[in-house]
């Protein structure tokens, strides 16, 4: 008992002992929840309208602390594909269970699949294959108790990992430092809570700890209250968890000793009873590791849920969403074709193989088609132009750049602009795929709602599209400039160098104009929404600096002898200034463009 207990404090700095007691209470609540569900089944059988009479009596559930082999067998036997394309509302957005599970895994565990050290811990030492992410998330929800001692909460910050490692013996500490996974129990232990209090003074580690506790641990604990799978009959309302149906079955609330709540609009008792029963039996069977029962109930839910409301997303939409996610949002595939086309254009230009250019254009077109499909699907799924975060802006920029590059290439016919465009498409799509993994920070790859300031205004969309398109053009110019510099080194003829320079100039002039116009449109938007056209925000000023570099390119050609070389060098510099502005400013400088 200490004094801090009754003071209102945020989690990581709270009293260790108080947390341990609270935590024990929560563990008990877990157990109670499972037994509650059993009670629910019995009551439902009493109060239901006969439809449940035909169902087999529910299996008595026991809490399964997780025998590894049983778990592995169960994981293999449960057919999560039955429910993969059902819908759920999460972060105010309706998505599929599969998308939800994917995101939940990334948030809690950081990886989409279990690493081998976790599979061994969860499913016995001999199992190596990770089960499906949807299975894991459902398991975490229905069988929460058995996860409490398992290491799966990801600690990203390495100073924090070092702090945590200091609390345990060496071997285990090294594991924490290397893998970053710890258990909820460990995070709530007295020693860790005391540590959290100690490091709370340093803003950086305190923030990292805050993220682990509030972002990951709490998300894991609240999985079931976030599992909002019951659609409202009226489209303007929020989706609900299955519990919200309690009040629709007369007499149930009292039996469940649950908080009084109004019944859900438009749900007849019969429908509610059926869903509640399926869900309760599912939960019971899940903890009892009864795969047949689980599959039967999953398939029953899969039949019922989509028929509940007219606002339920269509079957096609849900299928497309899952396909889109399964193929990494079409990044890798499109990127691969672009990469191939890039190599083709390189060979076509340097080795002067005549047929390679048209062949590369065909490959480029394939990549472009996939890229276009990826953006179109996203546009359809999000029901808005996909341009409101870093992932989307990079995708869109590359798309605009590739389209413009393709058109010019078809007229200019030198193979160089195609080369640049393929390079930009390749790099952009690979970056979109890999950056979240490499830097461990989401860049908006999952569809979400944009901030309010980004809605309502067409001029903004034109501004972003123009600026990002110019970035892609600058990227094309960079590729061509590098080709020029390589050409200088390997000693291409001056005629061929002049061809490269001419291609470069076509792109750079366009990039310069598009960027300049994009900045002016941005100023126009800012004068409307921030009340000032120019606020010396880092993004603005570095866009200006980028623009100045190309202004220098345009004018330096008037006064120097070796125009091609100057242009190529300045275009490379301009590219890096642009890159710093696009990516670096977000990480190094504070500003208003946090969403760009």
């Amino acid at each position: 008992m200490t004094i801090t207990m009754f003071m209102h404090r945020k989690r990581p700095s709270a009293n260790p002992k108080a947390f341990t007691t609270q935590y024990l209470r929560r563990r008990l609540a877990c157990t109670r929840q499972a037994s509650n569900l059993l009670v629910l089944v019995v009551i439902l059988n009493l109060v239901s309208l006969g439809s449940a009479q035909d169902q087999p009596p529910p299996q008595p559930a026991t809490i399964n602390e997780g025998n590894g082999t049983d778990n592995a067998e169960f994981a293999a036997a449960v057919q999560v594909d039955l429910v993969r394309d059902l819908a759920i509302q999460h972060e105010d957005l309706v998505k599929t269970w599969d998308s939800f599970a994917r995101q939940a895994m990334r948030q809690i565990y950081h990886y989409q699949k279990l690493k081998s050290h976790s599979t061994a811990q969860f499913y016995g030492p001999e199992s190596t294959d990770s089960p499906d992410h949807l299975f894991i998330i459902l398991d975490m929800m229905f069988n929460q108790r058995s996860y409490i001692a398992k290491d799966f909460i990801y600690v990203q910050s390495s100073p924090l990992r070092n702090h945590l490692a200091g609390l345990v013996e060496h071997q285990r500490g090294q594991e924490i430092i290397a893998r970053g996974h710890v258990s909820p129990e460990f995070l709530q232990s007295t020693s860790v809570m005391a540590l959290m209090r100690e490091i709370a003074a340093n803003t950086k580690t305190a923030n990292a700890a805050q993220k682990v506790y509030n972002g990951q641990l709490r998300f894991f604990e609240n999985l079931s209250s976030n599992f909002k799978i019951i659609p409202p009959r009226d489209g303007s309302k929020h989706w609900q968890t299955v519990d919200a149906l309690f009040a629709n079955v007369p007499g149930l609330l009292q039996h469940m000793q649950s908080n009084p709540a109004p019944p859900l609009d438009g749900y007849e008792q019969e429908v509610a009873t059926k869903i509640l029963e399926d869900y309760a039996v599912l939960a019971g069977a899940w903890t009892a590791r009864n795969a047949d029962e689980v599959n039967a109930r999953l398939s029953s839910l899969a039949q019922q849920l989509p028929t509940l409301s007219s606002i339920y997303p269509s079957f096609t939409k849900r299928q497309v969403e899952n396909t889109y996610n399964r193929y990494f949002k079409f990044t890798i595939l499109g990127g691969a074709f672009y990469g191939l086309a890039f190599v083709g254009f390189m060979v076509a230009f340097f080795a002067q193989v005549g047929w390679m250019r048209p062949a590369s254009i065909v490959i480029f077109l394939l990549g472009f088609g996939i890229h276009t499909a990826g953006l179109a699907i996203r546009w359809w799924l999000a029901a808005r132009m996909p341009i409101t975060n870093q992932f989307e802006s990079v995708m869109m920029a590359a798309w605009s750049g590739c389209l413009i590059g393709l058109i010019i290439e078809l007229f200019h016919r030198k193979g160089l602009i195609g080369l640049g465009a393929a390079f930009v498409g390749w790099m952009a799509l690979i970056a979109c795929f890999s950056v979240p993994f490499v830097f461990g920070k989401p860049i908006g790859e999952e569809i979400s709602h944009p901030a309010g300031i980004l809605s309502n205004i067409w001029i903004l969309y034109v501004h972003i599209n123009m600026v990002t398109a110019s970035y892609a053009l600058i990227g094309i110019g960079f590729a061509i400039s590098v080709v020029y510099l390589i050409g200088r080194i390997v000693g291409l003829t001056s005629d061929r160098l002049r061809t490269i320079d001419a291609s470069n100039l076509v792109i750079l002039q366009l990039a310069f104009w598009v960027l300049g116009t994009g900045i002016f449109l941005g100023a126009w938007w800012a004068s409307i929404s921030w009340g000032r056209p120019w606020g010396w925000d880092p993004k603005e000023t570095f866009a200006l600096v980028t623009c100045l570099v190309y202004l220098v390119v345009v004018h330096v050609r008037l006064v120097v002898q070796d125009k091609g070389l100057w242009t190529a060098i300045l275009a490379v510099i301009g590219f890096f200034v642009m890159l710093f502005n696009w990516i670096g400013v977000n990480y190094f400088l504070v500003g208003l463009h946090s969403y760009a």
Partner: protein
Amino acid sequence: MNPSNAKSTQPSRRPPYVRLLIWAGLLQLVTLGTYVAIGTAWTDLRAYFEMTDIQFFTAWPFAALTLSLMITVILVTLLGITFNRYKMGVWIVHTGIVVLCIGAFIYFKFKTEGMAWIFLNETVSEYYHVDERALYIRSAGREFLQPIPKLPRFHEYDESLFQNGLALGVDSPLPQVTMKVVGYYPYAQIEAGWRESNAPTDPLALKLLLSSADDKMAPLWVLPKSKGRDTVSLGPQFTLIGRSVSDEELQRVVAHVDSGGIAHRLHVKVIEPPLEQTIDVKVGQNYPIAGTDYLLFIANYNPDWRMAGGPNAGEIDKVLQVQINSPGRELIRGVLAKHSDLTGDVEFVGGERVRPGGLIDKNIVITYTPNDPFSLHGNGVRITLVHADSDDSLHCFIAQNGEVEQPSLESDRSFGIDFPHGQLQATAEVIKHAARVQSIHIVPPAQRRRNIAESMTAQVVRIALTKGDWHRSVLVPYVQFAHLPQPGFEPIRVVIPELGEVQLQLSRTRLPLPVDIKLTKFELQTYPGGKIPKDYISTIRLTDRESGQIRTLTTRLNRPARHAGLLLFQNSWDPENQAFTVLGVGNQPGLKTMTLGCAMIVLGILYAFYLKPILLRAAKRRLAAEAAALPQNRTKPRTPSPLPAQANPEEYRERDVKDLA
């Protein structure tokens, strides 16, 4: 001219002074770019000069650089570029740049921007400047505003530095009082406390020490004489109250406590079916209203409810939270004891909080009479220390869960308190005279939060006040909006001899608006079926003080309202209750000039890059046709051409494109 050798011969066509000007312009561009990049990325440099980004980019070197670039552009255009239709694009672009720069000079010269904080149904006629700071001095019901434009921003200045010539005098509106800024701390906390003093004018204080087996807390001080009652709150779970009373009042408190726990008297009036009832209620209990479907649950009681906004802002009332359950509906109603007209409902619809600002269920009207005359009860554990003036005795009352107990104080005035989690030992002390102590805690850089550092809301100034041989130095923290009663941001009070209490606040400079703005409606729009905000809509009524014109306008994200050169845009809002909005207020001087400049640049580049080659190609074709139509021995075309007569069109094009590329 040999086309294959154009590289080496071509630049010589331009006169040397034009080439020099171009090089000078390039150098200026590079310098400008470097200045901008450094000013943005190297924040420490700006901080070294105590400049904000706006100040850095309106400083004289930047202006001089821009001016010299303008001159170079004008000279190059006039001296080096012929005025014909082929060069028209460059002319337009260069003119556009000059126009844009002029617009920018006008803009940054006359720009002013600020914020107006408006509560629902209230009117404001002033706004707060976004950057400038001022010292607010309130004395004898009057307020004086003294801007301190030269106050630093980024670095700490302590007294010694200021004594070496940096002290900033503040014009003092108070007679014979001089004021000086003698310290500045950009990111600090004021640690205020009390100490025992000998001065007979200093007030009486009660001090409470709490300790457990393994922890000891800093003493809590209450000054019961300041308003008859003083409260210290440590989160929602623990409150300490100090009172100083006469013997008779003490008797009344004891008698009230002895009469048993509290039961507030609730008057319930139902319209349909018509019914009136009076019930005595306790917190945490259910009360069905016979003859109706209503079930009332007394959720909470708070005797220290401080009203935010409205004419009674800052006033304290006793509020009872009643949960009204009726079939298909569940409301929470906050019933106020004194201001029963302000009673309002909250409903949770699908997990969303709905708070219309009045009653949702108008069929049931509830008023109540609190039975807590000494405000002993409330949330969590409440300890009331009562000091009886006449015999210097100290009494303690501990209220929790609607029950009050009076622990017996031991000889050292210590007693035990049962908290939900265990027992604490408490020792109370009567301090005859207590004086306030202020000390500054400079937050170490590692513990600073970036957003707070950026918003400069943690800055503190030290002000030295002198009157004759009386002097005192006080620490004054910064508040964003000086007029609002914000807990924790109250003005600093100083008692000056012969003048009485003077209040000091450091805040943004307040400036008059040309209009009165009344917020008539504030609405938060969310994404369909969700809670994530999508738009904020303020409906405002403007009254122009000069013309008397009244207009009703709405501002929302990306859709500002405009009135007579004034732009009103949605800047911030009350995310909790939608009780207020913060509008950005600003003028936009030179905007049209800048827009014109931008349009010229955009169109001019298009002309120069894409229209000019088409024109040249047409000219080339025309010349070729003319050349073919002419007899071979003729050297001059009959019609005057803009192109040099002897030029072969092919070569001309080559040269000209290179020239302008």
